[in-house]
């Protein structure tokens, strides 16, 4: 059983229902390139799941298969119990997709394009709902504008509005903030977080670690077409996070004394800092004994500083391990 499943069952006293279930999914393109290798993934209803991975890791292929844009080579995907191939109508009507590329019509108005999307997904016209969506996305004033006249950020919002127009239960956001400036990115994060509050399950792919760190409940890391890990964000940071203790020395050292070798301390180039790295999850008595041993060795320090590793560092180390 994959590690994340046992982790899940151990973590939730009342297991939540899975809204998306991917099992044994593989994809080999005609060129022979294997984009996905036997992927298993369970997404819980109502969560915000961030799929992290470097460019070309298989994020977009995975989303493409779930949404019906890419043919799987093998494996199954069910959306709320509906198979994406044999029961594609039921499966797809629950999904909204915001693609990575800004693929929009040029000459249609914002209103026409969201009305189109709603119809395409088989929902009867509901101007009130569309108005709500457009207002939430600050697009209402632009409803009669042709899409070609909008800025890149606005086009991204139009794509989100199109996906929300048909009231999906699961929303896929493929790199929602790629090529978006910092301020707009913050805006987008607020927006995505508010979406989750409406009960929509959100799955976003990103290679901005900050994005996952900011919003996600759970994080999945994909690399070379394989899910490297799936973990609750907090748990991931606790388990894999490292802490560093930095000691500013009163008198620079030439070398770390022999008696302190077991701590694997790092001495800065100018000899004025000592850095001690320890795993967050392990017991922290190490610090007490380190400080004690330092005093024994006659080393005096003027300042102490600790820092925790970010998700970014965790991610980089994971991806390097897998490579």
């Amino acid at each position: 059983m994959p590690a994340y499943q046992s982790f899940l069952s151990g973590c939730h006293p009342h297991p939540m229902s899975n809204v998306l279930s991917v099992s044994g999914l593989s994809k080999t393109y005609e060129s022979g390139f294997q984009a996905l290798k036997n992927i298993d993934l369970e997404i819980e209803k109502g969560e915000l799941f961030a799929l992290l991975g470097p460019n070309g890791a298989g994020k977009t292929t995975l989303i493409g298969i779930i949404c019906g844009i890419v043919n799987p080579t093998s494996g199954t995907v069910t959306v709320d119990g509906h198979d994406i191939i044999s029961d594609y109508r039921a499966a797809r009507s629950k999904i909204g997709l915001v693609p990575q590329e800004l693929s929009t019509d040029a000459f249609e108005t914002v209103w026409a394009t969201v009305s189109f999307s709603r119809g395409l997904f088989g929902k009867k016209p509901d101007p009130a709902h569309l108005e709500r969506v457009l207002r939430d996305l600050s697009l209402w004033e632009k409803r009669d504008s042709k899409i070609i006249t909008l800025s890149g950020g606005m086009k991204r919002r139009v794509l989100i509005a199109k996906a929300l127009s048909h009231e999906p239960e699961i929303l896929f956001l493929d790199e929602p903030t790629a090529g978006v400036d910092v301020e707009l990115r913050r805006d987008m994060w607020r927006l995505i977080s508010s979406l989750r509050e409406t009960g929509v399950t959100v799955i976003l792919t990103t290679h901005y670690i900050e994005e996952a760190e900011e919003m996600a409940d759970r994080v999945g890391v994909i690399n070379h077409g394989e899910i490297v890990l799936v973990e609750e964000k907090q748990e991931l940071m606790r388990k894999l996070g490292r802490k560093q203790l930095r000691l500013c020395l009163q008198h620079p050292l030439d070398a770390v004394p022999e008696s302190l070798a077991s701590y694997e301390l790092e001495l800065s180039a100018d000899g004025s800092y000592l850095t001690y790295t320890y795993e967050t999850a392990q017991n922290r008595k190490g610090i007490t004994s380190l400080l004690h041993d330092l005093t024994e060795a006659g080393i005096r320090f003027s300042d102490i500083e600790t820092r925790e590793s970010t998700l970014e560092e965790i991610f980089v180390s994971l991806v390097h391990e897998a490579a």
Partner: protein
Amino acid sequence: MNIYAIRAIYKFEMARTARTLMQSILAPVLSTTLYFVVFGSAIGSRIDEVGGVSYGAFIVPGLVMLSLLTQSVTNAAFGIYFPKFTGTIFEHLSAPVSFLEIVIAYVGAAATKSVILGVIILATATLFVPLRIEHPLWMVTFLVLTAVTFSMFGFIIGIWADGFEKLQIVPLLIITPLTFLGGSFYSIDMLPPFWQKVTLFNPVVYLISGFRWSFYGIADVSVTISLIMTALFLIVCLAAIWWIFKTGWRLKS
């Protein structure tokens, strides 16, 4: 049946037509008018009657077919090619729609436009030649059937095409020659016997012959065969589209 989806795509396509009115309606009407002036009036006045019909009137069904075929193919091909080109096709592929619904919507819109065009050309023709329609119901049947069949063919071309050049090649290099050689401007029995036989392999012959029969009651081949051939082509196109959506050929990777 996802009626809302069919309606959405159909409306989208018709709005596109409305935006490109000059190109999609006026241009073909103008070029057909030129044919009338050149072949019908200028040259036609020196040509004998064909089967008791004046040459100018004789070529009307052929000219309508010429526009109907090229416009159906071009229009439907462009309709599905454009979302592929801009990338908006992702939405069609991820929507809960069946291949049949997509085809009904795209082909329906393209055929609607072609039929409107055909009617406008017919109306224009009455300005130049006296027109009589012996079997109006059959005339409409052939008009609609041909528009639908060739819109389907165009839809396939649009999916097959991976560039603007391919989009143009089939209408220009296949449809136009087949229509010109399919009896738009002459009756098959004006040809030498050998070429009469060869011509029978041209599917457009059956369309034009059937269509002309509905006007003047004269036909190169029997009307039943015309209908069967058209229906056969329609079924072949439908089967091809079914296969395309089943396998995702040129649509999904």
